[in-house]
């Protein structure tokens, strides 16, 4: 399986990523699933001006690679692309793209959703919502953690406190 993992300030082009993925896969590929995450303009009743996304260069890419490797162990994948933006993003900009290509659709769907669920809980990013009612650092929700756990196996690495 080929994996292309990028963290970047620039926007991404779904068309170019999709075409390159098809090109790499050739005739073996029966299914491509793409997820695009966008900045919403509201959080509850409050207008959202934008997001500030921060990462830890090196460690962030490693954290994504570990997630993709886990997906590759679970499903038959031909190609995976993860592009995650950082910096300031205003609604309705694109935040993240996950592409999973496989011979078969169940594998492509499962892998793409698995990667997204794990990105929410395990990828090394921090996200500040710039809102009408005050800025707030966003954490993964209880729902995110439940979805992550629904995939079974592996628990997050235990962190140390001082």
């Amino acid at each position: 399986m080929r994996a292309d993992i990028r963290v970047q300030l620039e926007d991404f082009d779904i068309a170019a990523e999709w075409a390159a993925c098809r090109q790499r896969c050739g005739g073996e590929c029966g299914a491509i699933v793409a997820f695009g995450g966008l900045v919403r303009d509201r959080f509850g009743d409050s207008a959202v001006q934008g997001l500030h996304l921060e990462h830890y260069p090196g460690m962030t890419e490693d954290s994504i690679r570990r997630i993709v490797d886990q997906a590759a162990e679970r499903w038959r994948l031909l190609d995976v692309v993860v592009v995650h933006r950082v910096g300031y993003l205003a609604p309705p900009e694109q935040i993240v793209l996950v592409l999973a290509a496989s011979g078969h659709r169940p594998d492509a769907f499962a892998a793409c959703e698995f990667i997204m669920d794990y990105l929410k809980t395990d990828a090394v990013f921090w996200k500040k919502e710039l809102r009408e009612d005050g800025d707030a650092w966003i954490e993964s929700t209880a729902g995110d953690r439940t979805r992550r756990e629904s995939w079974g196996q592996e628990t997050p690495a235990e962190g140390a406190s001082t």
Partner: protein
Amino acid sequence: MTALTVRFFASLREAVGVGDLDIEVDPPTLVGLRSALATRLTPEQFHAIDMAEVCIAVNQAIAQRDTPLRAGDEVAFLPRVTGG
């Protein structure tokens, strides 16, 4: 004394007011680092980075309680992450 670089991310950077800090610790352990930071930071700053949910990475790998520290190591304080 062992010289380290400490990094604070996101809400922790905001709480401490800086992203990087050079610090000397003795002994070269996470416990030694904690003592050094308790002296160097204000009580409010220290409280922010001393929370149970804060993860510590040494040279970009999640540290365990007994991870040894060497001169020049980069020790990062990471609040709860979320991507996507």
